[in-house]
Each structure stands twice: as structure tokens, then as C-alpha cells.
């Protein structure tokens, strides 16, 4: 498990630091077969992360769309969200078969989140979310510590 985590770190480090010379927002050149294979690799990896960790897979999809397919960040986050509808929907159904889904608790966090996402997408068009990214990173680390020490 730890080994998977470490590989993920390397993967992420590579995918987020990227190749500095690569122009952002430019559609990936090359044959559509290569493009499809890349989409398949991203989809499979995102699905694995989603099913394993109960997340949407955006933290896999967004950097890889930017790095492999030349997406700009905004298009990458938007396209990632759309893909997550399918990924999380399928993974939730699979978890449902294991009897793990708690419907009422999902409603309790999911409904406020719908309001939140309306605010978030609106804000994204207006501000550069760097400060929020850093703040969120701090929240994540603190929550991770809390989760393990609890």
C-alpha cells in the first residue's frame, strides 16, 4: 500500500511539474489513436484511485490532461468534473453492492456541497485560486494527521 502511495507521489511530481517548455492550452498534436490511448490510461488510473479511495479521481485526471493532452487548467478541471460523474457513479454503484453506502450521510454532505460547487465554479471565473489552493493544501495535511492519530 505504501509502495502504491510512493509511486503515486513520483507520478504526481512528474505530472505536475511537467515539461516547462510545453505550451499550455494547446490541443495535443499527434494521431487520435495516441490521444485515445492516453485517455484510456488516464481513465483507468482515475477509476482505480476513485474506487480505492472514494474520491472522484480529479487529482489524477487534471494534471494528466494538462501534461499529456495539453489542456489548460480551467478546461482540465471542467472536463475532469464531467468524467467524475461517470467514474464516481459507477464506483458508488459497485460499493453499493458491497453494502457500504450510507444514503442519509451522503445526502448530509452531498446537498450542501451542491451549493458549494455553484459558489466555487462562479469564483473560478473571477479569481486566481492560488491562495485557496495553498490554504486547502494546509487543511488536507492537517486532516490527514487528524485521521491517522485519531
Amino acid at each position, binding site marked *: 500500500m505504501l509502495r502504491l502511495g510512493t509511486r503515486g507521489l513520483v507520478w504526481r511530481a512528474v505530472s505536475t511539474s511537467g515539461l516547462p517548455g510545453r505550451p499550455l492550452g494547446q490541443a495535443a498534436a499527434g494521431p487520435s489513436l495516441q490521444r485515445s490511448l492516453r485517455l484510456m490510461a488516464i481513465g483507468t488510473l482515475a477509476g482505480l484511485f476513485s474506487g480505492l479511495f472514494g474520491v472522484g479521481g480529479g487529482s489524477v485526471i487534471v494534471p494528466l490532461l494538462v501534461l499529456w493532452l495539453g489542456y489548460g487548467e480551467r478546461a482540465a478541471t471542467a472536463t475532469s468534473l464531467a468524467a467524475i460523474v461517470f467514474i464516481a457513479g459507477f464506483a458508488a454503484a459497485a460499493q453499493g453492492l458491497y453494502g457500504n453506502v450510507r444514503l442519509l450521510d451522503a445526502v448530509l454532505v452531498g446537498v450542501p456541497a451542491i451549493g*458549494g460547487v455553484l459558489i466555487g465554479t462562479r469564483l473560478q471565473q473571477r479569481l486566481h485560486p492560488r491562495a485557496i489552493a495553498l490554504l486547502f493544501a494546509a487543511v488536507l495535511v492537517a486532516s490527514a494527521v487528524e485521521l491517522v492519530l485519531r
Partner: protein
Amino acid sequence: MIGAIAIGLAAGVIAGLLGVGGGVLFVPGLVLFLGLDQHHAEATSLLAIVPVAIVGTYRQDRYGNVVRRDALLLGLLSLAGAAAGVALANALSGAVLRDAFAALMVLVAAQLVQRARVDRNGSKKA
């Protein structure tokens, strides 16, 4: 319960703003505020993500940011991976899964810091 609602709201804002954060906040929120175990929290998070992602997609599509064909392909091509991930999660113990999830959170945090640093270098995104 108030904490759970606040986590839900925050997760939505982050999801809309950064494209990540639904599940990565839902899961610890469900564990820490509602007392679910790791397996139930992950499964419940997945269900909670779906409506959030639908609404977020709808909004982003109106801004013209969604590349529909790629999104559909990504979604459909992810199914085998998702099935494997769910099976793997259920094969692992809650403690292992929890520690792995905590590691994932730190990695996502590192990734966000990295993205923020790239932003500062002036590559204004499309």
C-alpha cells in the same frame, strides 16, 4: 452534524474552484464528524460526489470549459479501473485503507502547492 454540513459546503466550493476536493474532504469529514468507518466513508463519499459533479459540470459546460468528447471517453474508459479499485478497497483492512488515504491527502496537498507555484510563474491558464 453541523460539521458534516460545513464540510459538504467546503468540499463543493473546493471542487468547483480547484477541480479536486469533493471526495478528499468528504471522506475525512464522514469519518471525523459522523463517525463512519473508512470503508463506509469512502463508499458514501462516492455517492455524494455524483450530484456535485453533475451540477459542477453543468455550470462549467455553460462557461464552455468542458471538452465533452474527452469527458465521455474518460468516464467510460475508467469503469474497469473503478471496479478494480472498489474490489481492492474492500479487500484491505480499514486501518490500512485509512493510512493510505491519509497519504493520498498529503500527496494531493503537495500537488496543489506545486500547481500554485506553477501559477505564480505566470503561466496564466487558458
